[in-house]
């Protein structure tokens, strides 16, 4: 019986596979790094956006508080709405009998 003879891999094929594998690995490594940089960039963009929004919120809150100035509200209530301050004697407690 004739024994099946093992054919050694050709030297060229081995080198080709070896180099291809390395190229693939390098490509994956580069791809990983690119992904990392891409996400890092996105993250920083978001951080920048958060900082800008925080600053905007700060400005708006400050504007809101400037508008909510009690002295201005009092003046508006008195002059525009013709409201008057009330005394304790004018306040009555309602008793709800159940």
């Amino acid at each position: 019986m004739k024994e099946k003879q093992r054919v050694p891999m050709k030297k060229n094929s081995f080198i080709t596979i070896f180099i291809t594998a390395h190229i693939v690995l390098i490509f994956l490594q580069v791809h990983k790094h690119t992904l990392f940089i891409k996400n890092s960039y996105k993250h920083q963009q978001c951080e920048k956006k958060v900082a800008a929004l925080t600053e905007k919120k700060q400005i708006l809150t400050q504007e809101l508080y400037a508008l909510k100035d009690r002295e201005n509200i009092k003046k508006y209530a008195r002059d525009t709405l013709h409201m008057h301050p009330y005394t304790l004697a004018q306040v009555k407690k309602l008793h709800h009998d159940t």
Partner: protein
Amino acid sequence: MFYATVGINLYFIQIKHHTFYKKLAEQQYHVTITQTPLRGPIFDRTGRNYLAMNKDYVAAFILPTQLTDKTQTICFLKKHFPHAVNRLEQNQDKHFMFIKRRLSPEEIAIIVAEKNPDIFLLSEPGRYYPLACASPIIGLTSIDNKGLLGIELLYNHTLAGKPTTCHLEKDARSGYYYFKKETAIQGDVGLPLCLTIDADLQFLVQEAVQQTVTKFNAKEAAAIIMDPNNGEILAMLSYPYFDPNNSHTSSADHFRNRIVTDAHELGSVMKVCAALAALEEGVVTPDELIDCQNTLTTQIDGRIINTVQAHGIIPFTDVVALSNNIGIAIVAKRLNEKLYDHYKQLGFGQKTGIKFLGENVGFLNPPEKWSKQSILSLSYGYEVSTTIMQLACAFCIIATGYKVTPVLVTNNMNFCPSDEGNKLFSDTARNTIKEILEKTTLYGTARRAKIKGYRVMSKTGTANMLIDGKYNPDKNLYTCAGIVEKDNYQRVIITFVKEAQQKDLYASIVAVPLFESIAERMLIHDKVIS
């Protein structure tokens, strides 16, 4: 020849100056930045109202060594920022110079319109204070946003946080962005602070004080509302106060929180403390008849005593309610040195424990320095100088029997009477003095403080000011101190007015209506309706 030149240059770059170029490259690729956290805001007791918040201010600067058009820049600065020109002349070799910090919107518009390439704008963190009347409490920050006064200074460490230092890896084109970030020193964020002050109540108190100051053309005024059960200060107004958003326009005198920093001889309001001491020691009973000699001036132990209104033989209750100096001095003599001990127990002549910088301990004349006059003077509020804060604490003791430490910052761990030791004064003495104070409000000197449906216990004090070693009868201090009660609701209110311009005024006309006005506003605000 060409290859030789390239080779030599390569030698110099790669070998000879290797370290220099390596360092240069590292400087471009590795950047270290320090990020200062946002300063924590300050809220009132509700946690909804800001008392101090962050605001970005704009500063303008130039680089004196890199000016492209010096003549034009100087011409612009001369016209709009003349102070900066003088500084520029002195700092011509400096790399950086501020033109002005905290620019107004108009100044920013002028700079932007000029489009001068030598002038740069920079955003700087700062503070905005929505409630100006709370400024003596909250204080303010410096131009570098560091606590300078009040709570801002006292809690600077908590509010400011700690800066974080990071190493960034970037290249020449990455600009704002980086490839890698490593935290070298981890900082802390600035923590918010919640005060016991109620912003709305503070404003209502400010309104009432402002009206009184305008009406009597007074120089100074102050008012405080305290919860005697836990020592929380709900409103504390010191007038005049500075504008924290425009502090450079205010006088240095307006920066003090007078309630804590200024001590005065408050006069008759101290009779409450002398009476409490006498009742506690059992040297007098409320119904005991005291001979007030039906005169305005008399002598006790050879010392002259004046009183505002003459009374004959009246019960001790009326001595306090009608504020008779002769009557209270007669009773105080029975106490002698014990009066000093009781004043000490009530907290006079010592710190109240409030966490606030610049607290004045006042002065309580010790028995070893007493003259024959001392015991008499002490009984009606002279030879003892106290702050409004100390007086408020003494009234808290009258209200509850326990000593409380006044607090301005909430920490949910405030004093609870049941955890504390013994009461400082017996319930009998306290209840008696409270009844006397109630009578003072019903038919005594503090009649105008009466509020229908509520238990108001108050006492007035009109004191001459000591100027150049003499008591000036034309310059007075008007005080009204009291407790407002309704079921479990208790508040201590002190009102104080200094130097009203009109003459012949008494606390019953100046400080008592202010007390009543504040009490009414407070009851409506707190929805304590009878």
